[in-house]
């Protein structure tokens, strides 16, 4: 065990302290997200925690339509980090319907309804 916490608790503990970390397998060197106890690629069990560069590319995007009185429309996107892993997230800083597949984005940590959350902002360029 490289950690006294399970992978999920390690991730959310770091996030609540303001750190966005992902796993990297010590055997096959591939990055892993979401956090796991076993490398999904080579099945070994020693996974390090690393800080990603924070940059990535929008892989897909959708706008959830919600009544204005309930807060209005919002984005849900999938972002491929430059480390090669994908996560669900939200693109902030532009209207949800203007998010495009292929947009380059950078991670930031914001305070969400249930604690700190990783969201992304456009870098103003396409992949």
């Amino acid at each position: 065990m490289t950690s006294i916490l399970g992978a999920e608790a390690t991730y959310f503990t770091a996030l609540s302290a303001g750190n966005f970390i992902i796993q990297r397998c010590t055997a096959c060197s591939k990055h892993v997200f979401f956090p796991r106890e076993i490398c999904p690629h080579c099945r070994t069990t020693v996974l390090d925690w690393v800080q990603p560069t924070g940059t990535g590319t929008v892989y897909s995007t959708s706008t959830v339509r919600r009544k204005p009185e309930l807060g209005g429309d919002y984005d849900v996107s999938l972002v491929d980090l430059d480390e090669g892993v994908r996560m669900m997230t939200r693109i902030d800083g532009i209207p949800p319907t203007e998010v495009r597949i292929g947009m380059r984005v950078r991670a930031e940590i914001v305070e969400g309804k249930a604690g700190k959350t990783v969201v992304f902002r456009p870098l103003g360029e396409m992949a």
Partner: protein
Amino acid sequence: MNSLIDLRGSTAIVGVGTAGCGEAPDFSDMEVLARAAHAAVADSGLTWDDIDGLATANLNSPMWALNTAEYLNIRPRFIETTNIGGSSFIAHLQPAMLALASGQCNAVLVCYGSTQRTQTVGRREKLLAKQLIDPYSYEAPYEPFNPPTSYALIAARHMHQYGTTRRHLAEVAVAARQWAQLNPEAFARAPLTIDEVLGARMIADPFSVYDCCLVTDGGGAFVLVRSDRARGLKHKPVYVLSNATAVWHRQVSSMADLTVSPAADSGPRAFQAAGLTPKDVDVVQLYDAFTINPILFLEDLGFCAKGEGGSFVEAGAIAPGGRLPVNTNGGGLSCVHPNMYGVFEIVEAVRQLRGAAGQRQVANARVALVHGNGGISAASQSTALLGTDLAL
């Protein structure tokens, strides 16, 4: 038995039934299940005493087979309760085929019921409880409106990668509605045009409300026996030629390629075990939780090349009178969708292969493909090929 190919045609569906499709106010899930099960047993010509196998699942109860055996007062020797979402009742076929082939049991009742539409008490509380009991820890913070959001992400990527359009998606909705207009049991039968689909209220881009399946009540059931037993019963047997199931992920963020579903695995295995190809199929039932689903599955199952699903459905190609009859009951989009839809696809395929589908009957239907989808992101897929005696 040496291989799954030996199971080809070894079992047959001899009874089907539905109950409470559309709205069944003041009925419980179990009550519509029981009525559908009773209709299926009666339709088979067998008696309740003959039923010694049970396959069922329910999204609200993790041990639903117990509830069901108790309610029906049966003591099955074979119990199958794999729950992989809406495709479950198609995925129940292969275990049931093996149990029948081995002699573990002689007649399997596959049954389902839900009154999701009219049973509104505590709906919000139940949803919140599910989120606590079985969380999506890494997606929930972003509040996806699921299942629409996950399938919308799949559709958006397919559109980006292959030039699929919202008009292609609308073709699927309109084709389903045109079939539903030929089916007295279908819930949504009002005329629907492509422009109405495109102009309707948006739910999760690129989906408008007509790109999303219905929320209805309904129960469905069928009875499966060994083929030797099937002959001489009430109806012409519908033989199970093959079944194959694939599960690759749960969350849409874990789906390796949003344009390829596990149907790309279940489909070829089902065709191989049946000794058939897409060209041999006369009528197709594809789980249409959303309009992107049939497009994705037509590609993954080999009816067209990857990326060509959109153009495949153009100009009413899967509507009545089109080149390939798809979702002839009206599908989950326009016929019935009570939380899980798979069992209704089998019921419709059996009616078509019996030649008992009324106005919507596909002429000379000998082989039907039934394809189930489950989970909130095309996560589980189960493909079955069914046929008449002419397909054996």
